[in-house]
């Protein structure tokens, strides 16, 4: 049965789009049929991170308004045949999205895919509430930093009250994904620890993505980090997280960079 997963956070710049691309690619590599949907109308970026920016013809708003068919707006990934992208509109504003319109697209996507991953815009306005509206599960992307944790808590409250599932008296299955984590800084007491964040948010952990230069490197070239360098620390962390989404039990650890001899000699550090 198809699952609708929203990747959300409240706060901007914590890694929602990076995580959407990486988890989507990883699920597709595991044989799942996946569509990643950009809900950031007016500020689309998932197309760029996925390397499909030059292939966008129609978008989510065109489909909502009946200008284009869903099949015309879906873009198939050039690397993974199981992975598709539904881009957001760059020219329209978020008021062009309606609850009914989004509902009917999600219902249609459910018949075609195993996973529908909705990349939420930042904030708590219309775009963000519609991205989570039809979700079965949610990934709350959180940085180990006070403002991000506070916003995650707010978003968790919205997932428990403003979604279709919540209104039916059911629960959206929530997972916290901690990104930009630095084990050494946390050990020195300079950064909130995993335990701190989980205790405050009282939500199960999906994965820990270490701070890494590989994330920027992958977005520079338009490739999900799991495809760009599968052996990198963030790629391994995202791959583990994707397997947990599929119901597998994977030991939770923070993957670390495998430093080469030159890196060690020159004392290079990740980020």
């Amino acid at each position: 049965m198809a699952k609708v997963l929203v990747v959300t956070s409240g706060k901007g710049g914590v890694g929602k789009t990076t995580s959407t691309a990486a988890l989507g690619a990883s699920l597709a590599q595991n044989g799942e049929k996946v569509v990643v949907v950009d809900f950031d109308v007016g500020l689309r970026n998932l197309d760029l991170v996925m390397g499909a920016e030059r292939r966008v013809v129609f978008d989510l708003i065109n489909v909502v308004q009946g200008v284009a068919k869903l099949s015309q707006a879906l873009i198939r990934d050039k690397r993974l045949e199981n992975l598709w992208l539904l881009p957001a509109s760059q020219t329209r504003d978020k008021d062009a999205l309606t609850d009914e319109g989004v509902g009917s697209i999600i219902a249609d996507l459910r018949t075609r895919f195993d996973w529908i991953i909705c990349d939420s815009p930042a904030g708590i306005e219309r775009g963000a509430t519609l991205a989570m509206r039809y979700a079965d599960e949610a990934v709350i992307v959180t940085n180990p930093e006070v403002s991000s944790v506070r916003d995650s808590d707010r978003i968790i409250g919205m997932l428990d009250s403003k979604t279709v599932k919540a209104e039916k008296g059911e629960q959206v299955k929530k997972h916290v994904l901690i990104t930009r984590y630095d084990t050494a800084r946390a050990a020195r007491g300079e950064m909130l620890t995993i335990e701190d964040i989980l205790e405050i948010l009282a939500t199960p952990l999906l994965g820990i993505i270490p701070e890494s230069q590989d994330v920027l490197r992958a977005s520079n070239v338009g490739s999900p980090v799991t495809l760009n360098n599968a052996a990198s620390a963030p790629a391994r962390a995202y791959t583990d997280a994707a397997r947990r989404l599929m119901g597998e039990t994977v030991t939770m650890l923070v993957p670390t960079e495998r430093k080469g001899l030159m890196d060690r000699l020159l004392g290079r550090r990740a980020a």
Partner: protein
Amino acid sequence: MSASLLRFFSGRTASAPVARERLQILLAHERSLRGQPDLLELLREEILAVVARHVELDPDKVIVKMERGETVSTLEVDIELPSGCQRMIAAAG
């Protein structure tokens, strides 16, 4: 132990416990308010309704402010009445 030793030698105190404590206090407060209508908006609307029963006024000229202090909080209601305002004879009383 190693973390505290490191901290001792680096001469810095750990800031993460401060972050943790501030978050716990703040979120406990914010969660208690969640789901309730915005108090100030509610007060503004109800005060406006009461005054409007007797005096014609511009809804935009009703300002309700709340200031939270350490020991005392104040609620300030500022209603601008139109010049030469007349007492309306409210049919409903």
